[in-house]
């Protein structure tokens, strides 16, 4: 299973790699600009992304990413330092962008993120 993390912070990126690489193939990019190229290369099963990125706004990235036909259905989890109350409470805002989960970093442990990732990964049939 491939997970693509979009995470600009070097220490958190290291932490994600150490935590998740035992169970998944993990690729990490700090920027939205590289994420689309990496998605083509990696074909991720899930994308986990920070919204607060250098150069790009994460929401702009989401609109752009979802505009590609190949990437309209890949599950996306937002794992961010931005408090959820800064966005409309109406869930349709996120469902329009086909975002499966909005997880607030300060209160969501990696174990909880892992559970959400597991919930979203398609079950392999033999």
């Amino acid at each position, binding site marked *: 299973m491939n997970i693509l993390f979009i995470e600009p912070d070097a220490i*958190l990126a290291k932490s994600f790699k150490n935590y998740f690489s035992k169970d998944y193939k993990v690729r990490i990019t700090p*920027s939205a600009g590289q994420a689309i190229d990496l998605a083509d290369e990696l074909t991720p099963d899930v994308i986990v992304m*920070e919204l*607060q990125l*250098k*150069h790009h706004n994460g929401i702009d990235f989401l609109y752009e990413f979802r505009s590609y036909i190949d990437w309209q259905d890949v599950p996306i989890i937002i794992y961010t330092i931005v408090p959820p109350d800064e966005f409309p409470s109406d869930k349709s805002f996120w469902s329009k962008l086909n975002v499966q989960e909005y997880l607030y*970093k300060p209160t969501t442990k990696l174990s909880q993120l892992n559970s959400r990732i597991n919930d979203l990964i398609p079950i392999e049939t033999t």
Partner: protein
Amino acid sequence: MNNLDVDSSHILLKSVAEELRLPLVQISRLSETSLARGGRLLEDMKLIESSADLALQLLDSYILGLEFSNKQKQIDLSPITMGAVLNDVAHQIHKVANQNNCDIEVAIKTSHPIMGNYEAIKLAYINIANSLITSHDANDSKKRRSITFSVFGNGPRNIAGVYTQDLNISRVSWERSLAIFEKTRQKMPDFTSTNGSGFYVAHTILEAMSLTLVPSKHNGLKGLAAGFPLSHQLQLV
């Protein structure tokens, strides 16, 4: 922004509090990773120490900047050299730099003394350096960077700056970032993914001492620098 008004103080406080979330999240996640996966305890403890140091330095600098701006604390001046300040800053940040694969260089071209507040200037430059180091891209961890501290004489001033690679900063982007600081969550998206409070706190401390932080270049690197007027009296000593 001398004499921070109440609204500006609250906005800066909120911004610093938001910025402090990141090192605390880093500490929490590193601890969790270490406990869950094991085997990397020493490496993780070093990162935890560096995250905690960053948070503490930002907090101290914010308080000092606020006290100076609101004149709650007098800015005591004494003869100092910027070379000594920058060497001290380089020593203070070496752990953070090391954790971020960043080498430190110090280029001291002048030892003319200036009148200044050693601790305040040191804190301002620690914040600039920390902010530049942590602005480097996460997945370039294998690529070594450098952070250069430089001081040189330029007419009646010493120019002291901090510089690094791949910094997309210009006078226009810097001034725009300062102008929008109170109005937006991500104040400096051109050069950092954080909200840039470290840069802003350094700007506040230096501005309280009538010094201006501006984008600057040094040996092909970009960074931020301030001009420190030479003291005519000290030159006579």
